[in-house]
């Protein structure tokens, strides 16, 4: 967790046009009130604007968790680069992994400007003090997992990320626009892997069905339990716009028909669109599993964190070399 007091603005405050909360002559409560009015009214915030500690901390926590998930999220897929079935699949998977690490870089940049150094964010991640998404704590058992992850895990993520392109924190919103554009390729890559295997041999088809059955639970948990909109501070500050249930419903609405279209089944007898409400019904996801997994007690949590720790140590010489290099003419 990030201590709000540790977050000093790294950018000098500036007076952005006529935004009253940037006026240093006002007292804190007045600035807070103006800021809240601005943001809840749909106004955007730049890194150089004055912002209340609660907002700075809340945005930072959100972006840092997102960055961590992008960074850790490549580890399950990375395991299959050397085992990709064709050169083209290998190129696509390598490019996806590079994209996701790139997303982590972009997001850590956004977070750094809020006042937490990248080094501190990495250290907190490696020490298990900050979290990453549940889906990246599970093993990848077959090539079919690579298709299911790139198609459905990325799809569930993109549903959330599209809603963030309008976040009140403008540097995050802009970054999400670039990220969403790149994510759309990942989904196509994943769907292509799935469709290819579904139309392949019976063994390939069975392999996809088996992977889907295994991933369905974590996918249903991914957006988190239902929450009370009025109590959600991220929604209050318009850092995000949608609740977990809204995101899950959107995901189900788009992707369940596309899964069924392939003749695949989902391991939930209660899953279906309720014609009366227009909402998807489903068996309550296992929230205890979610809690266990995101607190680093998932099947691969420790192994993946240890991989990152070893990697961090093994690449120390690169960071040292970068800082030791004589400065080129700037």
């Amino acid at each position, binding site marked *: 967790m990030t201590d709000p007091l540790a977050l000093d603005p790294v950018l000098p405050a*500036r007076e952005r046009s006529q935004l009253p909360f940037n006026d240093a002559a006002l007292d804190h409560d007045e600035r807070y009130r103006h800021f809240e009015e601005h943001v809840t009214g749909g106004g955007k915030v730049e890194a150089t604007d004055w912002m209340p500690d609660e907002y700075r901390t809340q945005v930072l926590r959100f972006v840092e968790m997102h960055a961590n998930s992008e960074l850790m999220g490549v580890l399950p897929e990375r395991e299959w680069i050397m085992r990709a079935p064709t050169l083209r699949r290998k190129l696509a998977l390598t490019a996806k992994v590079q994209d996701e690490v*790139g997303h982590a870089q972009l997001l850590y940049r956004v977070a*750094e*400007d809020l006042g937490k150094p990248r080094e501190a964010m990495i250290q907190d991640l490696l020490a298990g003090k900050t979290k990453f998404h549940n889906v990246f704590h599970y093993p990848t058992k077959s090539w079919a997992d690579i298709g299911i992850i790139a198609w459905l895990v990325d799809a569930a993520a993109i549903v959330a990320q599209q809603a963030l392109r309008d976040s009140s924190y403008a540097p995050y919103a802009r970054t999400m626009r670039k990220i969403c554009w790149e994510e759309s390729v990942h989904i196509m890559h994943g769907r292509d892997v799935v469709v290819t295997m579904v139309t392949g041999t019976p063994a390939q088809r069975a392999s996809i069905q088996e992977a889907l059955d295994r991933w369905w639970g974590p996918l249903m948990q991914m957006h988190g339990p239902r929450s009370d909109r009025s109590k959600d501070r991220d929604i209050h500050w318009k850092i995000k716009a949608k609740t977990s249930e809204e995101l899950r419903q959107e995901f189900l609405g788009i992707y369940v028909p596309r899964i069924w279209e392939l003749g695949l089944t989902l391991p939930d007898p209660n899953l279906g669109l309720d014609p009366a409400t227009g909402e998807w019904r489903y068996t309550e996801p296992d929230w205890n599993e979610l809690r266990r997994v995101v607190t680093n007690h998932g099947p691969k949590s420790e192994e993946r964190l240890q991989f990152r720790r070893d990697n961090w140590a093994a690449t120390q010489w690169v960071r040292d070399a970068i*800082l030791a290099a*004589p400065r080129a003419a*700037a």
Partner: protein
Amino acid sequence: MGEAAGAVEAEPVDEAAGVLEPWEVFRQEKDGDPMRHGGSVMAPDATLAVHYAREMYGRRQESVHLWVVRRADIHDLADPDLLQPPLDRSFKKPGGYVMREKLAAAREASGQQKPRANKGDR
């Protein structure tokens, strides 16, 4: 007030300091387009900044030209007194000239009809 905010941030970095600092990246999507802000990278010098910018903002042929600028070298102006002065500037904008009623009066006085739609009519 609003002056050179970017420039105050980092002290000048000397040759051996080896400090990472932010560099802003601007990108041109295709020939003839304006340079638009893409984002930023952290680097200790221009060479690495350009290298990172190429990886982050050009690896899938989405740019034909990049500008990489040390954030501290950007001069910032956001002073509302200079940019948004509370004076009527409508005489500098086409929308500041509303003559519908005067035109109608002129037509009535001259007995002429309103001309058919003419996009250039101001």
